[in-house]
């Protein structure tokens, strides 16, 4: 698969600009969880109020990219989705309480793209995916198919929020809340293809040291122009020229 990435944005607590990400990539460390929520002040208060932390991250990274393009399809991907909202609903059920209509209506996996479509007045095709640690790659594949079907550009958003403590023994791919958005257009500078087994081995060895990096953020060295190839799980990324 070939394509271009016209622009990107990523967010984690205290990390928002390319400069901050570059510094972080040079010395990776767990972000300061107390560094606050992503800024979504570009939305009116009445729209902002129902956004979960996951939705805030997704809007924060993707909105500025969308402002430069106008209507375009969105592929949103999250492995864990609105788990905190769902846990809140399950807890209410367990206590025999009435369910919060707000939590209920926004707990589904495609709630965020629904809000996106409403807030932006964009009726382009919107897709919500859930995948294992290959979410970014599968979302990009979906986006490339949309480009091939004629879309001028496609927004890819991958986001995961901090998970409720009760689920933590089973979750190992969200060391901290994070989101990344890519604006994909047709092109040949970027390649994504199945990984050769030797590269897989190298990737495993490389990932055994240092601060845990969420799968989707392992693309940062390529986006920052520090590296030209990267193997993530079953996928090989390559970028030629900036």
């Amino acid at each position: 698969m070939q394509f271009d990435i016209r622009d990107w944005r990523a967010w984690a607590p205290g990390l928002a600009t390319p400069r901050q990400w570059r510094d972080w990539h040079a010395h990776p460390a767990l972000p300061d969880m107390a560094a606050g929520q992503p800024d979504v002040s570009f939305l009116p208060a009445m729209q902002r109020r129902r956004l979960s932390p996951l939705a805030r991250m997704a809007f924060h990274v993707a909105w500025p990219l969308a402002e430069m393009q106008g209507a375009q399809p969105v592929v949103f991907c999250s492995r864990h989705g609105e788990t905190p909202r769902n846990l809140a609903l399950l807890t209410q059920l367990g206590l025999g309480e009435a369910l919060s209509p707000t939590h209920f209506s926004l707990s589904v996996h495609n709630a965020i793209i629904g809000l996106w479509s409403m807030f932006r007045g964009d009726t382009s095709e919107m897709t919500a995916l859930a995948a294992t640690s290959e979410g970014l790659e599968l979302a990009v594949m979906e986006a490339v198919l949309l480009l091939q079907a004629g879309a001028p550009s496609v927004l890819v958003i991958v986001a995961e929020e901090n998970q409720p403590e009760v689920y933590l023994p089973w979750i190992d791919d969200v060391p901290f809340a994070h989101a990344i958005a890519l604006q994909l257009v047709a092109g040949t500078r970027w390649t994504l293809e199945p990984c050769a087994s030797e590269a897989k081995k190298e990737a495993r060895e490389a990932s055994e040291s240092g601060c845990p990096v969420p799968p989707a953020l392992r693309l940062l060295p390529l986006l920052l122009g520090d590296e030209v190839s990267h193997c993530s799980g079953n996928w090989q990324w390559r970028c030629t020229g900036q």
Partner: protein
Amino acid sequence: MSDLHLEVKNLIIDALGLEDMTADDIDSTAPLFGDGLGLDSVDALELGLAIQKHFSIKIDADSKDVRQHFASIDSLADFIRSKQQGGQ
């Protein structure tokens, strides 16, 4: 503003996540839905739930008067007061 009016306004702000508002920003006579405060149908359900929980009263959602009771802060306060005074 009566204590009950203030209580209802604060409940609306909390339950509906109106993070930038204070009780003083809400006009007791203005419509809650549509043109006034601008609440929507999900807010109506959320607010109904919050009021039932907070004031330990029961609201019959099928009653045709519900729309009127939820028209403004004033009408909502009147409705809650009547329920609390044994109009169950």
